[in-house]
């Protein structure tokens, strides 16, 4: 198993009353697999993703359980240990492509950043070459020009592609996509999903796809986890979940999908 | 429990600021009716007397009671700063509201002028003013007031630009509400929070600017008391009578500090 999560619990203590956002969640992810986590906002799906990526705040957070990545414990690992994995073995892209890139740095610089950190011996030309390849891998037109641009010169969809390119530059074994399409137009959403699908096949990279959009998850994922109020409600293959949901919350979610097929 | 919720509601900064400000305001209020001594009464026997129970802050080089003069000076400073902010706010709100709401060529022209005035440090503008119209408190008020208009105008303008695009304003326009009514009744009250914090910052700047001008001898004229001119006089006797400098200076600091702590507290 690439990733094994056992009894993960996350509690916030930054208010007067402790807030339990994730409760006893366990699941695993095989190499090259695409796993979807669905749930409404506040279900704990994003917090689970942040915990895996090592991006939980240090203060006021109580975490329990284990996150094993290739057998290494991440949840209670030191910052230094985490940093070796971040950007190198695990890449992550976020919901807001408009604000997730540094506005005052060039695209190329940002895409190459993980290489500078994790492959310090690599020559400048090699890095540049890799970055441009990555930019063309994510189907950006004129990668050479995009390399020199600033974030504000690109559209939301293009920025999300840049985010993917920079998350994948070190060829990580796991890409976490935290609601990567929510802020984008519907047509662009589909393109991004197809892109993730293609990259998964070509690079043999596992994807943890987090979304509240069931129809996208169904299109993309091999397996699905349903979360609600911090609890893992149900998990199974995409087919199982959609054709034979066991929990009534899952059924409600599925019924809530606005479906053209239904009308036709 | 009660203490805890009080602390949460009023951070320590705010409480300290409020206490300082209230004390200062009470002192200023008192100075309108009563000062321990006549501020111009000279007493050669107590020239540069050290602080004592008779003269709380000592006496100056003419034997005048420093505490009384500090009180009067604070009053002068406060009145001038207050009037300055009133002029600055009134002018700034008018210009900012109209340019922000209507835009167009009026906006372009007025904002260019505002930019030019803004590029001019306020003390320098006041110096120009004073050199043309002469010294004295009302000239200082006029000079600083005009110098303060641009910063208020800019803030109000950007608020109006933000609000004029909002749906509730659009629907008021469609409903046929008059422009002036939209400007002053529908939009202006919403700019209150932003305006309030810049008024407080403006007040502090006005206090500092007034003190600076009277230090240079172009503000309130002797024998009337002002904190700045007291500081200027005190310098000659700095070695023998440091308290002469300390108290007027301390009062300026407290006046500004109280207000800025209060402003920070309100913002948070």
């Amino acid at each position, binding site marked *: 198993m690439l990733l094994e999560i056992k009894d993960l619990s996350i509690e916030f203590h930054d208010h007067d009353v402790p807030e339990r956002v994730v409760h006893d969640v366990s699941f695993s992810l095989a190499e090259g697999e695409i796993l979807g986590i669905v749930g409404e906002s506040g279900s704990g799906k994003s917090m689970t993703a942040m915990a895996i990526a090592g991006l939980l705040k240090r203060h006021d957070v109580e975490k329990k359980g284990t996150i094993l990545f290739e057998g290494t414990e991440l949840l209670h690992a030191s910052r230094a240990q985490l940093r070796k994995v971040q950007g190198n073995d695990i890449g992550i892209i976020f919901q807001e492509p408009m604000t*997730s890139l540094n506005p005052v740095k060039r695209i190329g610089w940002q895409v190459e*950043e993980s290489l500078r950190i994790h492959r310090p011996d690599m020559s400048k030309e090699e890095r540049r070459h890799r970055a441009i390849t990555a930019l063309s891998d994510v189907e950006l037109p004129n990668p050479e020009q995009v390399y020199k641009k600033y974030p504000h010169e690109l559209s939301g969809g293009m920025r999300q592609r840049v985010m993917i390119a920079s998350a994948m530059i070190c060829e990580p074994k796991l890409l976490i996509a935290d609601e990567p399409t929510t802020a984008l137009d519907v047509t662009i959403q589909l393109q991004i999903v197809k892109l993730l699908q293609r990259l998964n096949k070509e690079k043999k990279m596992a994807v943890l796809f987090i979304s509240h959009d069931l129809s996208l998850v169904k299109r993309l994922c091999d397996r699905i986890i349903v979360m609600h109020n911090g609890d893992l409600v149900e998990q199974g293959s995409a087919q199982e979940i959609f054709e034979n949901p066991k929990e009534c919350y899952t059924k409600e979610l599925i019924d809530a999908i606005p479906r053209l097929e239904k009308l036709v | 429990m009660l203490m805890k919720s009080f602390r949460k509601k009023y951070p320590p*900064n705010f409480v300290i600021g409020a206490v300082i400000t209230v004390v200062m305001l009470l002192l200023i209020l008192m100075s309108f009716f009563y000062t321990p001594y006549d501020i111009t009464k000279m007493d050669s026997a107590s020239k540069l007397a050290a602080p004592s129970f008779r003269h709380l802050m000592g006496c100056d080089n003419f034997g005048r009671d420093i505490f009384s003069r500090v009180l009067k000076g604070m009053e002068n400073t406060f009145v001038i700063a207050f009037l300055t902010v009133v002029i600055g706010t009134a002018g700034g709100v008018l210009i900012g509201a109209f340019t922000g709401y209507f835009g167009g060529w009026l906006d372009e022209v007025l904002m260019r002028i505002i930019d030019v005035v803004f590029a001019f*440090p306020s003390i320098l503008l006041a110096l120009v003013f004073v*050199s043309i119209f002469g010294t004295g408190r009302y000239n200082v008020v006029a000079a600083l007031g005009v110098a303060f208009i641009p910063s208020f105008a800019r803030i109000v303008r950007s608020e109006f630009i933000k609000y004029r695009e909002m749906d509730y304003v659009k629907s008021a326009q469609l409903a046929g509400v008059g422009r002036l009514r939209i400007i002053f009744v529908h939009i202006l009250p919403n700019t209150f929070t932003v305006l309030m914090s810049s008024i407080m910052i403006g007040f502090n700047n006005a206090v500092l600017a007034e003190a600076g001008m009277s230090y240079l001898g172009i503000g309130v004229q002797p024998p009337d008391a002002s904190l700045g001119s007291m500081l200027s006089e*005190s310098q000659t006797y700095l070695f023998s009578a440091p308290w002469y400098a300390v108290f007027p200076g301390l009062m300026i*600091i407290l006046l500004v*500090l109280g207000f800025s702590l209060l402003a920070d507290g309100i913002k948070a």
Partner: protein
Amino acid sequence: MKYGLKKFVTMLITILCISFLVYLAFDVIPGDAALAALGTDVEPERLAALREEMGLNRPFLERYFDWLLSFVTGDFGTSYKYNLPVADMIVSKLPVTVIMALISFIIMTAVSLPVGIYTAKHSGGRIDRVITVVNQIMMSVPHFFMGIIITYVFGMVFKLFTPGGFVSYETDIAGFLSYIIFPCIAIALPKIAMSVKLLRGSCVGEAKKDYVRTAYSKGNNTNKVLYRHVLKNAMIPVITLWGMMLADMLVGSIVIEQVFNIPGIGRILLTSISYRDYPVVEAIIVLIAFVVVVTNFCVDIIYGIIDPRINVGAE
């Protein structure tokens, strides 16, 4: 470079506007060069004749452009009081004021940058809280009172310099600098407080933004995130403040010159105001305004270099 050109044109227009307004202001007040030369109790005929001779009866705009033209060529007019060319009076004093402003500015940036970054990095910590309180008090101290405190503490108690013992840079550079450093500290201290506060707030605000999370997700450590990502963004508002402060310091040194008894531009300006020596006042005001506007222009250019969004956007 379109942006730079636009800002340059704006700067020229602003300078033109200021010079026009200042000239207009001094033109409408009673009293002119002829009156100043002859005194108030002179026969009207002689006054009129001199006015004609000096070209004071020409239309306003003609006189303005004439004045402007000689101003840019370095002829600032003649002092009413001393009957000397204004340029000669100013030229030897200008360096003192400018050097003071520059040293103060250097002190301010050199101190506030590390302190601001430190407090931002350790925000909420004990040192941060102490510095915040000190800042709050510093900001409330008028810089001329700061000057008086420094005179008392360093001049009278520790005897590090002789209050009032200004040494000209022409005679003794080292002596000049060791005297000037104290007024510069007086100017810089309140400004340090303000810029530390802004830099800290700006860094803390930037640190909450999404791109910082992205930077961490790539394996950056806190220092790298701070220096490679946050700082450049956080500096944008600070640069604006610094630009305004440089102008403030130039004007502030006028006041501080009085505290430390330094014969700079401020001294001439104040005596000229009290003697109603208008050509001198006019020249100094326009000159200072000119420096201020050029400074603002430089800030705008630096701004354009730091923030790529400015060059392309409409504004």
